Structure formats: C-alpha cells, structure tokens
C-alpha cells in the first residue's frame, strides 16, 4: 500500500509516526484513510468545507498533486506520498518572548487582528 510521509511538525498528530501506510486508489481515499487513522490531523490538512488547505502541498514522488489531478490523482501501491509543510523557522525559538526594546515600524495591525496575532505568537519561533 502507498506510504505517506509525515513532516515533523505534523507528527504530533500521528503519534510520532513518520511514515503511515494508507489505503486507497486515489489521493482523496488515502487522505481519508489517514484522517480515519489519525483524526486530530484532519483540521491541519482540510478546511471546514472538506477541501485541502491551500498551504498543504502533497507530492506523489516528485510531483505536486496540484500539477496532476489534485486529490483525484490515482495512486499506486508502491507510491510514496510526501506532505510538505509550510514552516517559518529560521533562527529564533522564543516562544513569543521577543525582546521588548524592538519596535516594529510596520503599520500597526487592527485591534481585532492584534488579538489574534498575540494569541498566535508561537508562530514567530522557528528555531
């Protein structure tokens, strides 16, 4: 059966497993099998409408399914599927604790976004 390679950031949702054997004749079926085996990964891959999120890139071998037939792309038993995450990391890993003296010259974001932004400060750390 095809094997789906899970990137490190998403292994928290696959009990640490890096290679998951999935059943199915298409990408869609394979992903359904994945989310059946590991339900908590689902919101990280699919939006509320059940569509693959735009920042999720899935490759069969070297090729992006976006360049093939999307989730309808057929897969073979020996195919290797690779999920590619969007990772921000580069240098810091501050868990949101950034130096207080640094002041952005960026336009201040709206307060509604500010709340959202501050709640999501962990994004800032990459490394």
């Amino acid at each position: 059966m095809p094997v789906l390679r899970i990137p490190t950031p998403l292994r928290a949702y696959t009990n640490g497993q890096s290679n998951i054997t999935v059943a199915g004749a298409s990408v869609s079926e394979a992903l359904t099998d994945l989310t059946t085996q590991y339900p908590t990964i689902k919101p990280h891959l699919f939006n509320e409408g059940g569509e693959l999120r735009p920042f999720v890139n899935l490759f069969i071998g070297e090729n992006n399914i976006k360049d093939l037939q999307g989730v309808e792309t057929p897969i073979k038993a020996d195919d290797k599927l690779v999920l590619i995450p969007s990772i921000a990391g580069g240098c810091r890993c501050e868990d949101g604790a950034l130096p207080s003296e640094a002041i952005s010259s960026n336009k201040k974001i709206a307060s509604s976004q500010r709340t959202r932004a501050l709640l999501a400060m962990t994004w800032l750390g990459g490394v």
Partner: protein
Amino acid sequence: MLPELSRDEILRYSRHLLIPEVGLEGQRKLKNSSILIVGTGGLGSPVALYLAAAGIGRLGLVDYDVVDSSNLQRQVIHGTSTVGKLKVDSAKAKLLDLNPGIQIDVYNEPYTSENALRIARDYDMILDGTDNFPTRYLTNDVAVFLGKPNVYASIYRFDGQVSVFYAKEGPCYRCLFPEPPPPGLVPSCAEGGVLGVLPGTIGTIQATEALKVLLGIGEPLIGKLLLYNALDMTFDFVKLKKNPNCRVCGPNADIKELIDYEEFCGVPSHDHEDEGSAVAAHEITVTDLAERVKTNHLKLLDVREPHELQISALPNAVNIPLGQLAARLSELDSADEMVIFCKSGSRSARGLELLASAGFKKVKNLKGGINAWAREVDSSLPLY
C-alpha cells in the same frame, strides 16, 4: 568589468582558484557580488560565515535582535562575549575577523514593507534566513519585484527545506505556498525547538546554492525543493512549478507592490507593545497567581511537552501537551477555575483560545509562562 584579485586574495582563495568551475574569473565574480542576508540567527550564521569566507565582495545583514545566551546552541556566528550586543554588530565583527577584505553593511532594524525595497535594491541576491511568515512573504515579494533570486531555507526540529525562488526562471515562494497557514494551525518551533546543528546543515546548503547561482555553475535548486530530515538522514527532492495563478509572479498577478504582511499572515513579524486588551483580560500575572494559589483552589494546566517538565514544573499541575488538548478535553472540567501555562505564554494562549471555543469560561493564561514564574516567584527554577 570584474575587479582584480590582489596577491593576498590569490593566496586566500587559492583552493577556489584550483577548481576549474570557479577559477580566477569565478573568484572575481564573487568579489564583484553582493548578497543581502535577512536574519542573523540560526541560518544566517553559517550562511554569512561561509559567504564571507568565500569572498563575496559585499554582504548585507538585517536583524534587529540582540544576542542571547539561548541563541548560542546554534547561532555560531555569535559568542559568549557578544551576549547582549546587537546581532548585526556581533556578526560583523566575526565576519571581518574571518575576512577583512570584504564589505559588511548592517541594518539594525526590522525588515518591513517600508524599508525592504530600499535595503535590498543594491544587492544581487537575497538569502532568506527569517523566522516568521510575514517576513518570508515580504522577502519573497521583494525578490520578485526587484527581479532577484531568493535563496530560501527553513528549519524545524530535524527537518529542513531549501530552494532557490527566482521568478524570472522558475517559481517563487508564493507559487508553492500561496498563503500562510492560519495562526495556530501548524505547530511552531516553540513546541519543538531545533537541533543546533540543523541550521548548520541547511544554511551551508543555502550558501552553496548562492555561490552556484552567482558563479553560474551546476544546477541550482530553481524549480526544486530539497527536503532534509536529520533523523532519517534523508534528502528528498520535489519539483516545483510556476503557479499560473500566482498573485505576485503569475501572468495575472494582482499584487504589484508590497502589502501589510502582518495583516496577510495574521501574525506579527516583529515585536509589538502588548496592548491587546482582549488578551490581557484573560491573563494572570505570576505574582497574582502566587497570591491566588495561597487562598483559592486553582487548577493548573501545563500545555508543554512532557520532556519540558523535566526542565521545570509547577507542583500539582496537570500536563496535557497543546497538541493533545483538543482530544483530551474530557479530562478537564469547565466548571473549574483554571490557569493555563506553558514556557512563555504563547502556546497556552492558543490553548486558552481552544478551551474558550469549547465552552471553558473560567480559564486564565499565565502571562510569561513558567519562565516568568522562575524569574519573579521561584528563582530555584531554571530559565530555558
């Protein structure tokens, strides 16, 4: 007209001159080249060191941070003697010690939509060593608008990615990632950390790609993405194609100038003053918590990873790692008054958001996390 090499330079770069693919002319090309390195941290450290050693004529360094001792596990351009100093100054001194014959220009400021085009305009190439999505999209768009190659790398725990995004010849970063993940949807390094040597591995590949592009040799990672995993010791490559619907480099691109990247990504790229009242209303300070626990029964929820508890822990706290929180809500009682905490308050803020959406109304986030507790309440606990 390429600059000549001095006698000293011929000696210094002799191991390059011996390689036919570089040779005297190649070395003169490098001397004539300029590279902007955005970020002087994990990736920027090896990148800057090797490019300086390689004899790139002019390097630009952008960073507004100061060196912290927790950087030194991986940011090898800095040292114990430069803790507390500006990263750009620390890096410049090290680079000029390594190679006094090159020019180092420093920009001790956040890289923003206001200054990025001005800073990047005079460089041949941009190296993305940033640590957040807003700056990554900014770096990409600047490179597209100025028609320069963007040598990209990103790291997380044991994983690394490298590519050369060069819209003139292939896809750009947005072709692969049209939009960033919503805040909080993908775990950040705050839950993960990074193997200190990983940015060394990935940064030196990034520097290799930069040299290849400048010298016009080999097959640069244009249209290809390298995926590295240190644990499995695997290097995988995937093909990247130009996205015909790309909003910055596609034929019908509608983004023609730099935008507000923090708004686009829903996260700040740089530090802002903490003025979010909605957030503050759900926060508790460590000093308040220290008072409250004397009299009230408060449930403490620690959302860090289990191995972090070995570094520091609060007695009687329940540990549910953030990644498992959604699946383990049944272990918690929404009637309890609860204080949620992590290392510095960010993961727990996301945990609080998750709990609030699940109907938990009596939860407060410990501002500054257990590190703030260690600083202000219990100095026997270590900071990390």
